């Protein structure tokens, strides 16, 4: 394969990656906003007011996500569950973007330097999401 064909192949992969990352971000934000809006409207329908009052008691994101998943498993889906799920999706969106970027540098570009940089970002972010108060 010639150098120019290689370059064109990498450029095409890069273009596809840009579209994939852009779509991931867009879907994440829209899904999270949809869940939050639905939760608020559901609250309004149940209580007659658009006000939610529940604390998150200093959980980290993974504890928060686990507690929310457990509620869904037990069939406790209500307005507060919708808002919590929306907030979790919102916070997971940039995290998943970093995961996608790492896979791209590792598997598509086979770029050891940028795989290492992205891995560092991913490790620091993961550590921060496990923080306790």
């Amino acid at each position, binding site marked *: 394969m010639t150098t120019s064909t290689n370059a064109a192949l990498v450029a095409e992969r890069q*273009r596809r990656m840009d579209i994939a990352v852009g779509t991931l971000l867009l879907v994440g934000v829209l899904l999270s906003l949809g869940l939050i809006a639905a939760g608020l409207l559901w609250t309004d329908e149940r209580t007659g007011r658009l*006000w939610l009052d529940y604390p998150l008691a200093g959980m980290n994101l993974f504890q928060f996500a686990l507690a929310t998943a457990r509620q869904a498993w037990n069939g406790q889906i209500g307005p507060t569950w919708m808002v919590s799920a929306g*907030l979790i999706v919102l916070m997971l969106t940039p995290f998943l973007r970093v995961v996608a970027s790492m896979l791209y540098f590792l598997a598509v570009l086979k770029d050891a330097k940028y795989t290492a940089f992205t891995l560092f970002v991913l490790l620091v972010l993961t550590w921060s999401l496990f923080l306790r*108060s």
Partner: protein
Amino acid sequence: MLGLHTPPISFEVLFPLSLVAGCIGAMSGMGGGMILIPTLTLLGVDIKQAIAISILSVIATSSGSASAYVRDHITNLKVGMFLEMFTIVGALMGARLTLAASPRPLFITFGVVLMGSWVALLVAGHASWQGDQPQDRFSRWLELEGSYFDRAQQQQIDYHGRRAYWGAPMMYGAGLIAGLLGIGAGAVKVLIHDLVMGLPPKVSTTTSNLIIGVTALAGTSVYLAAGLITPGLAAPVVLGVVVGAFLGTRLLVRLTNQSVRRLFLGVLLVLAVEMIFRGVRGV
């Protein structure tokens, strides 16, 4: 966890206020947090909680706009990934500092940063791009280069990023400000990309947007663990800021640059003075 009382502010108040903050933030390019945080504190929300809610909303606005920019193939992912290593560490440190600080220095710091933004907006616009310049060895090793098709100029723009050795520590500082004050600090990041690293304005703006989301997540994680993210406040604010930012970008094309500048300069100055005054008086 910090024992905070969340004032019961109704959706009818929070949503429009956040919408206006998001709208002005998008029109000025400064982000919604600059307006949102002072406004929330005026409604009786603790400044640390206001910062926490604001940085959460930054994730939504930056991810929303980054999604469009990335698909336009202008964002430079390598520049973004390299600089994110520094901004996230800065954001974690900044958020930790906020948790440890008392409210008064936070009010004063916020006011001073607002005042700095006011001066920057008054004296400068985007510095004109100097064109493609020779790269230093470190930036070449980092492969900080790229090209994109500029629709306005109808031509392919090739560029090489420079001075990454200065850009990196400065981006740590930008991340620190973002985590400390709950803002995107996009203006600071764009300035570093433009003036220090020599990136074309479109690349610096779009890449900065990508970095802001991850940086904001790092800060949010600290505030979430501290119990400062309350869904009752967060839900209407996130919705309002995102809808406001969406409207702001559409409104921008209908308004003249001068009217936007004048409006934002006035709002920024009033809020800056008010925040410094409250910090000094200890309110």
